[in-house]
């Protein structure tokens, strides 16, 4: 199920087609065998060897599956990398990538990293004697100060979750390269539509594809893309060896979601900008965190490295009691964990996504008890603002 010669022979670097086109024409959009307009869901675990001298491309679905391969090729194309990999969840992608390290290694990780990544690093990897230093990644001096002789990797999340701090990807990546460190970026919030870290010198891009890439809150999936083939081989050995792979049905749903990524992101971002602007003028709301706001400290860096501001807005309601009131009063957004869906999702980091973080660590990282995170969906923005206005008034 290769690209039918639609891509230039000399590969992706020469692929000048625009992003929206790549989303639809990613190589496996048409089934080679039947001509079907959508890649088939190959729900097989194993594959017959028609000729024992010429084994089939895939021989066992953990090692490779045609449907999964289609989405893996698509994300590699979209991120501009050498190889893509699909996993059972974002955490499965992140945990597999971290297992490139060995006992005795050290990682430098952004301090307001996703709670699940924090938990994996501090409970599982720490047992394997892999040590982590959490730093304010927006401060290059702090990143440099964390370097140790056994440092192997720098892990960034930008914008970070939930306080949307901005890391200068190119600056960190070039410093890391000087010291022979591997760099990874969790690109979940931006998606390759808005930000392509590999183009900024990063080695591995990771996604919770459950979020914007899938986009419908109906697929749990993770993706990874490596910048080069050599790293791709190493990550492939781990994907196959550890087996945390994405199933064919989910791979197909993810691919289906990805086709509308640009349309969804455009719409959600327009709404998020209006929401952030409205919130920042609301007397009942404290600080608003959104890289598109003029006073956001990372705005300049963000504009240099990204093509958009994204669809997640965090804001401080002032107290736990008020945050809880708002959560119980809103009618439109679903109150849940996760983000990046067609439906707006309002969540409470202190009790949800970042509950795995001890309260004192959370406070230190600016994830206060009054903080709410709004993932803006595709509803009409006037409806969302009216709904939130009412909830804030009542609270």
């Amino acid at each position: 199920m290769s690209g039918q010669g639609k891509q230039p022979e000399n590969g992706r670097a020469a692929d000048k087609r625009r992003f929206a086109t790549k989303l639809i024409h990613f190589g496996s959009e048409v089934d080679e065998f039947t001509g079907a307009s959508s890649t088939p869901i190959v729900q097989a675990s194993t594959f017959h060897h028609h000729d024992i001298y010429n084994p089939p491309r895939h021989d066992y679905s953990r090692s490779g599956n045609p449907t999964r391969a289609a989405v893996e090729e698509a994300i590699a194309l979209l991120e501009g990398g050498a190889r893509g990999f699909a996993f059972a969840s974002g955490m499965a992608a992140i945990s597999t990538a971290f297992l490139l390290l060995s006992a005795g290694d050290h990682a430098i990780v952004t301090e307001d990293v996703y709670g699940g990544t924090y938990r994996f690093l501090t409970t599982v990897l720490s047992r394997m004697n892999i040590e982590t230093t959490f730093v304010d990644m927006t401060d290059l001096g702090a990143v440099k100060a964390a370097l140790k002789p056994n440092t192997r990797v720098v892990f960034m999340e930008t914008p970070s979750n939930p306080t949307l701090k901005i890391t200068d990807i190119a600056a960190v990546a070039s410093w890391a390269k000087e010291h022979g460190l591997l760099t990874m970026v969790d690109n979940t919030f931006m998606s390759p539509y808005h930000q392509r870290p590999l183009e900024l010198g990063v080695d591995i891009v990771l996604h919770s594809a459950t979020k914007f890439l899938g986009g419908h809150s109906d697929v749990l999936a993770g993706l990874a893309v490596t910048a080069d083939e050599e790293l791709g081989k190493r990550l492939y050995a781990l994907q196959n060896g550890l087996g945390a792979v994405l199933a064919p049905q989910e791979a197909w749903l993810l691919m289906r979601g990805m086709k509308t990524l640009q349309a969804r992101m455009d719409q959600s971002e327009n709404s998020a900008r209006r929401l952030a602007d409205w919130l920042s003028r609301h007397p009942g709301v404290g600080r608003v965190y959104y890289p598109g706001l003029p006073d956001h400290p990372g705005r300049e860096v963000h504009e240099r490295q990204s093509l958009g501001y994204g669809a997640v807005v965090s804001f401080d309601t002032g107290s736990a009691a008020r945050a809880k009131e708002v959560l119980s009063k809103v009618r439109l957004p679903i109150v849940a964990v996760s983000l990046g869906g067609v439906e707006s999702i309002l969540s409470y980091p202190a009790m949800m996504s970042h509950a795995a973080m001890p309260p004192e660590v959370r406070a230190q990282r600016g994830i206060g008890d009054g903080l709410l995170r709004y993932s803006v969906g595709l509803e009409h923005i006037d409806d969302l603002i009216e709904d939130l206005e009412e909830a804030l008034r009542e609270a």
Partner: protein
Amino acid sequence: MKIESRLAQIGSIEEPVTGSISYPIYQATAYRHPRLGQSTGFDYARTKSPTRSVLEEAAAELESGDAAFACSSGMAALQTIFAMFSQGDHLIVSLDLYGGTYRLLERIMSRFGVATSYIDTNDIEGMEKLRRPETKAVLIETPTNPLMMVTDIKAVCGWAKDKGLLTIVDNTLLTPFFQRPLELGADIVIHSATKYLGGHNDVLAGLIVTKGEELSKEMGILHNSIGAVLGPQDSWLLMRGMKTLALRMERHQYNATRLAEYLQGHPAVAEVFYPGLKDHPGHEIQNRQSSGNTGIFSFKVKDARYVEPILRHIRLIAFAESLGGVESLMTYPAVQTHADIPEEIRRAVGVDDRLLRFSVGIEHADDLIDDLGQALEAARTEIEGGVQA
């Protein structure tokens, strides 16, 4: 309740709203909180999802465990279990071992300072010699794959418990329908559910079943943290497969016995490894701890040169990796499933270039005998025909 009934009824009365006899596929990743601090029991699909939960509850019950965890593959289940261990820990593992497990231990876990010793797990004295203060667990496959060596589960568990070690049993080949290791004293059961539990070669899945509250809790944390979880569509397909497990296993056993007996008398075959045969060294232990035999066995042809033409001439039987499906598959372990095990270890165990593994499906046994018979004859004619004529 008998196990056949529990299997047939997986998920059948769990859906309270519509009464659907087939449990719905909840494709949702996020679950609305009715009020803050209140949860329906489901928050985020990686942590817990309704379709996966019905499967996990059934698996725990079938294996007589306290909790079960569904993973994206058998290897994902193993890596989740292995994440319990820490740098410096040591494991004792069956010598005749699935190649993927060996690779995970030797290429990945070794980098994190987890060491492994391999031994025939019936040799308790030998295991005692290998035991160190850092030894944390014993992992056994019984019967082993592909040589069908049988380990006395009760004896190993008794010794391990005495020494404070965890016992992990890979129960892929027998399934809880024929063997329930937790009832024999094991702490953790693992499955590549891709095989007999799924049974149709169409789902990649793994299951972990744990005994005891503390162990179950720890495994739950790892399952969620590592995130190698099974998706809803595949959870549903796996449950669907499990509903016919009893029927399939009985037919797999019947067909495998017929084929093993047939091959035992065939002039091109040197040896047949199947615990269901009376002269198999593990026959007695197998009968004591299991209520039946699996559907796969291995056999050695008399001449390695037969292998290639046999694989070329089989028509009904597919030449493919994996096992445990309704369709018959033939595998060449030395180059497929066990290629990652170094040759000297493979040879020491007996996985050599004359060994073929046969996963016997549920086709009619006579058709399978006919197909294999003609392939064996064709192979003999090709290799020796010139000489004999």
